[in-house]
């Protein structure tokens, strides 16, 4: 009788210790979530829209680049040339997603998950700038309205769908700035976005 009771007690203690460890681990989940929400997060880049800069080996490998996006005060302190991530209302990713789930394509107008995709592009114009647009845009020049930015991909018209397709975006949509490339390792390091300020045509 006694050994059985001792075994039950021991098992109970062990389970209790395991349960406590599990609980102690779980209490850290909100901390990690808060860090990812306010400070920074890893992001996997998919698609060729930033081609010469991100996903540069797109024709050799299916592996995606990994970057760090810095999320603290994301909609503020924006400069021309910065690479930002934002919730896209209409993007190539969205349409591709709808192709993958064809039942949602016909009811696409009612699909609530359209705005759930983040895009990564380079800021070309800040509010008040006059932009020389590319072909899908209806007018040859446009002034970026208050509280908006003009974003374009490095990939150009063929590889990128950007503000030339859907117009300037609100800075409130911006979720983070891409500050570092993590993977692949030979391009590891800080994103020198200020070097690109000279390449911007406007």
């Amino acid at each position, binding site marked *: 009788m006694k050994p059985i009771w001792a075994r039950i007690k021991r098992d109970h203690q062990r389970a209790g210790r395991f349960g406590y460890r599990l609980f102690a681990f779980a209490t850290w989940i*909100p901390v990690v979530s*808060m860090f990812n929400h306010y400070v920074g997060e890893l992001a996997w880049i998919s698609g060729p829209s930033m081609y010469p800069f991100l996903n540069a080996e797109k024709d050799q490998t299916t592996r995606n680049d990994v970057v760090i996006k810095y999320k603290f005060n994301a909609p503020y302190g924006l400069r021309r040339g910065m690479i930002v991530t934002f919730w896209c209302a209409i993007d190539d990713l969205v349409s591709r997603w709808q192709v993958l789930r064809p039942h949602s394509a016909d009811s696409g107008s009612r699909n609530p998950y359209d*705005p759930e995709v983040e895009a990564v592009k380079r800021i070309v114009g800040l509010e008040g700038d006059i932009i020389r647009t590319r072909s899908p845009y209806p007018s040859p020049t446009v002034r970026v309205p208050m509280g908006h930015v003009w974003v374009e991909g490095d990939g150009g018209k063929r590889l990128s769908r950007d503000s030339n397709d859907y117009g300037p975006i609100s800075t409130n949509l911006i979720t983070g700035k891409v500050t570092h490339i993590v993977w692949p390792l030979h391009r590891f390091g800080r994103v020198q976005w200020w070097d690109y300020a000279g390449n911007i045509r406007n």
Partner: protein
Amino acid sequence: MSSLLGHPFRVLIYTTKALALGHLLVTYGYSTGYGWGPSMLPTFLTMNEWFVTDRSHRRGRRICVGDCVVYGIPVAPGEEGVKRVLGLPGDYVLLNSPGVGSDTMIQVPKGHCYIVGDNLPWSRDSRDFGPLPMALIKGKVVAKVVVNGWWPFNWFTRVESGLHPVSDSPIKT
């Protein structure tokens, strides 16, 4: 006391964890906020009212026409407002206020919605800045809070969708 201060950073760590848990509830559960201004008059008063926001409707999830939403104002970085959803993607909406002489209708583009205040002449909304990207919706207003009396359950008033079935029309036939 010695057990509480056993680890030099224990109190700090516990505080951080509690804050983070609170942040999680406020970001993905329910949050409250103060709103002021005449744009949603008769539904919401000009001031002295708080809102309870259901954040599970963030980025326009399961939003219907007639819901009151909290949204980030697209032309003012960091500012938020409360308006009512008039049209969802694909709907045809009146571009301007009724009765101003222009009857232009537009179709709300994919991933956007059209929002207006209940107090049309005193509201800045989609009639000024155009269709609102769904991703700017922070949540749906489910209740308003006015502190009157001591019984907390009397403070809350449920906010209903403004779209009623025809059978519920207040006009008696």
